[in-house]
């Protein structure tokens, strides 16, 4: 007895809110490395400010003394030097040492925060722990730790900040806490106003630190939860895309397989494996096979078009495409068909390279050239030229036929899916009606410009313009530069009636 279990609970835990745990709400190493770099850059800016402060102190030391900042001890120089050395060490550990258990981006950021807090405490001590707004800079570190670390870790940082600030206050006024006991038993009015001031500062700032921690860490949790949902959604879309493709493949197979069985049998008769068939029957079979091959082509083209559309949504990796090789390959492929109708393909191709998706370029040129052959008159010629324009780094591939041409009223619609004209259908019975839709999709995916000029019974010119082209030979010695942003001209149709 067979037993099968089914479960469709794929959404389980999908929307769980990341809790206070250390693991769940941590950022990935890649994100942490990015943040560590950003932190280092920010610190260089602080070092710059400190240097400016020292220059200012040299010029106007009296003004600083007036506002209560003591600069004589040379602490800004020491802090600047320490931060400089620390910054260089962080960069060395991040970029020039292999990542180990003891050299992770997380430990790097921890070291940065602790050293920064120590430096800040020194600054707070010297510029005045209650006389200036310097202690408020502790808030910045709490906010950053909430962004970089988990909730618990940022709470530890907040605790450290409170302790450090208390130590700074204690160093400034060593008797502050020693007198504490006597304060409780003595009359409140006997308290020194400065002590009340210091305790009030400490209490208020500690409250502020915890409030900031609470607010920013909650915000951070919400942001990370949303980030997780976005990732989930992206994963779902990717899975759906894969499923869709599998379904399309299955449908294509189910539709095409019976046709292939029929055509295989026809091929048996054509190959005389079932005895010699009379010419009339052979003729009829050829016609059946011709129509069936058209239908088979249509079925495969629908799959190709769907895949190309999906590729447009997926910013796939672009490669350097040698267009000359691709065009020559297409011509080689199509030569037997052209030959069977006594059509000569005349290539005149300059070598150049563009960024694009190679397989798609092949589909594009194969479609355009095979169309030129299909809609030519027997015995005519098809000219394929590729010209590289060094002035504006563009290249134009033109496919010229001398065939039935396209009527003016039809020209704007040739890229529409399943568009066909009775005139064209009469000339080429096997057209799937989506060949040019495929061309259009490839052009969109690869940001190509296509110009079509046609005159009925004279012929058609398809010109594909490719931007940012490079000479094929020059490529090897050239360092690759990122492509400059160009506007996407899209698809255009121009008349030369």
């Amino acid at each position, binding site marked *: 007895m067979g037993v099968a279990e089914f479960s469709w609970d794929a959404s389980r835990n999908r929307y769980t809110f990341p809790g206070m745990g250390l693991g769940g709400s941590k950022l990935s190493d890649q994100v942490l490395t990015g943040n560590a770099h950003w932190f280092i850059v920010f610190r260089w800016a602080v070092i710059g400010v400190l240097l400016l402060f020292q220059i200012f102190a040299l010029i106007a030391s009296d003004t600083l003394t007036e506002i209560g900042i003591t600069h004589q001890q040379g602490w800004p120089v020491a802090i600047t030097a320490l931060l400089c050395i620390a910054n260089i060490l962080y960069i060395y550990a991040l970029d020039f040492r292999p990542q180990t258990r003891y050299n992770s981006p997380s430990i790097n950021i921890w070291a940065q925060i602790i050293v920064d807090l120590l430096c800040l405490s020194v600054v707070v001590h010297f510029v005045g722990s209650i006389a200036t707004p310097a202690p408020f800079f502790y808030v910045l570190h709490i906010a950053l730790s909430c962004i970089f670390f988990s909730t618990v870790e940022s709470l530890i940082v907040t605790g450290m900040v409170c302790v450090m600030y208390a130590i700074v206050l204690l160093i400034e006024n060593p008797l502050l806490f020693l007198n504490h006991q006597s304060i409780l038993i003595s009359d409140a009015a006997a308290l020194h106003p400065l002590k009340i001031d210091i305790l009030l500062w400490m209490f208020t700032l500690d409250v502020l630190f915890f409030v900031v921690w609470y607010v920013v860490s909650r915000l951070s949790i919400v942001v990370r939860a949303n980030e997780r949902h976005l990732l989930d959604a992206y994963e779902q879309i990717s899975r759906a895309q894969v499923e869709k493709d599998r379904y399309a493949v299955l449908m*294509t197979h189910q539709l095409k397989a019976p046709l292939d069985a029929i*055509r295989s049998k026809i091929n048996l008769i054509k190959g*005389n494996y079932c005895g010699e068939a009379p010419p009339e029957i052979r003729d009829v079979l050829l016609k059946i096979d011709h129509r069936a091959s058209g239908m088979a082509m249509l079925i495969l083209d629908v799959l*190709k078009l769907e895949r190309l559309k999906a590729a447009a949504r997926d910013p796939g990796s672009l490669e350097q495409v040698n267009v000359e090789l691709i065009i020559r390959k297409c011509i080689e*492929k199509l030569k037997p068909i052209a030959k069977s109708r006594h059509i000569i393909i005349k290539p005149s191709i300059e070598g150049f390279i563009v960024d694009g998706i190679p397989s798609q370029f092949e589909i594009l040129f194969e479609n355009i050239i095979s169309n030129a052959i299909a809609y030519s008159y027997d015995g005519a010629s098809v000219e394929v030229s590729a010209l590289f324009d060094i002035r504006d780094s563009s290249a134009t591939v033109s496919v010229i036929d001398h065939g039935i041409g396209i009527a003016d009223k039809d020209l704007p619609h040739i890229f529409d899916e399943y568009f066909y004209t009775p005139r064209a259908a009469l000339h080429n019975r096997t057209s799937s009606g989506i060949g040019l839709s495929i061309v259009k999709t490839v052009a969109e995916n690869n940001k190509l410009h296509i110009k079509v000029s046609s005159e009925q019974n004279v012929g058609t010119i398809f010109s594909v313009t490719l931007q940012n082209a490079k000479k094929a030979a020059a490529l090897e010695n050239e360092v690759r530069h990122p492509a400059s942003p160009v506007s996407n001209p899209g698809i255009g149709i121009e008349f030369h009636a």
Partner: protein
Amino acid sequence: MHTSVIPAQRPESTQTRGQMPNSVLEKEGCTTRRIAHIDDDPDIRDTVKRILDANGYGVDSYQTMNDFIVSLGNSQDLPDLAILDVMVETMDIGLETYMEIRKRFPGLHMIFMTSLGEEIRPYFTGISDEWILIVEKPVEPVSLLSIIRNRLDAAEA
């Protein structure tokens, strides 16, 4: 657009019924080459068998991948070539069987024949590093024979 993976064709008029002129028997005058063909479509099985029989090959046809694997057993007497349909039963079964055969019988030469032609190739990326020959259906006698001859020659070399 019809993309063909088949080599250049020869004129079909060279063929006659029965023993075909380019058959391996005539050419080599030696033992019959054995070819295994797995396809769930009886019409395709019949077509391939007729063509290969007429050209002097020994053909073992199987309806399912499982039948084929059972027939292989653990014997070292492998067919000279196996023609597999990718979408036999389901695509997954086709690909899984291919993986299993590759693992168990690394010496067995295989080609794939499918209605989807090159469009099936994306499903092979990542499961095999080796070059895979995919032939698009329908079965065309001249090109099928030429491919088989090529593959058998390549296997010998």
